[in-house]
């Protein structure tokens, strides 16, 4: 099955700064998905990223806060902008790889 490499695996950031998370898939995929996982909560979909078009954001998430790039069929980035402690969470990317949805290993973000 496909492998998704996600980096960084963790980071501690100052409030007001931005962090860009990268995901690389070892095969071409149509759609990539970005999730947030907070302690004790379900995975929450942030946005769906299609190559060549703007990402589609879920209710409660906006492009200014979570800009996404999808320059080709194997790569995507999520930026968490103007961070606050409430953004501390695990961020995960995912893609449909023909055998189900595969996930990256996650980025554990702490905002101080």
């Amino acid at each position, binding site marked *: *099955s496909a492998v*998704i490499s*996600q980096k960084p695996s963790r980071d501690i950031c100052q409030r007001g700064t931005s962090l860009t998370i990268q995901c690389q898939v070892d095969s071409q*995929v*149509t*759609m990539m*998905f970005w999730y947030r996982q907070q302690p*004790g*909560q*379900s*995975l929450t*979909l942030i946005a*769906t990223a*299609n190559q060549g078009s703007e990402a589609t954001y879920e209710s409660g998430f906006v492009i200014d806060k979570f800009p996404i790039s999808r320059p080709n069929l194997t790569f995507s980035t999520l930026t968490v902008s103007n961070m606050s402690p409430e953004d501390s969470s695990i961020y*995960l990317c995912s893609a*449909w790889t023909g*055998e*189900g*949805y*595969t*996930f*990256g*290993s*996650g980025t*554990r973000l702490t905002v101080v």
Partner: protein
Amino acid sequence: QKEVEQDPGPLSVPEGAIVSLNCTYSNSAFQYFMWYRQYSRKGPELLMYTYSSGNKEDGRFTAQVDKSSKYISLFIRDSQPSDSATYLCAMRDYTGANSKLTFGKGITLSVRP
């Protein structure tokens, strides 16, 4: 009512026990059902994927779907300490690469040696 409800945890069992993990859902449009296993500090890993009512077996794992009751289960036979992880149910409403998943909250399982 949340779209997907998963039995709360945590759950602790002795090695060799049979484990039953359950989810209910309210959206009758859900057609595809998945179970993910997530180890600490790792991303979710797909365990089982099914789209029809009935049972699907893979080694020590059996996924059961009852669409009439909107209820899915994952059974783990002869549980091992290596099964200790968080298990998440997930489902979607049609087949397609851009269909989004809806997840349960997850249940943390601990298998005691």
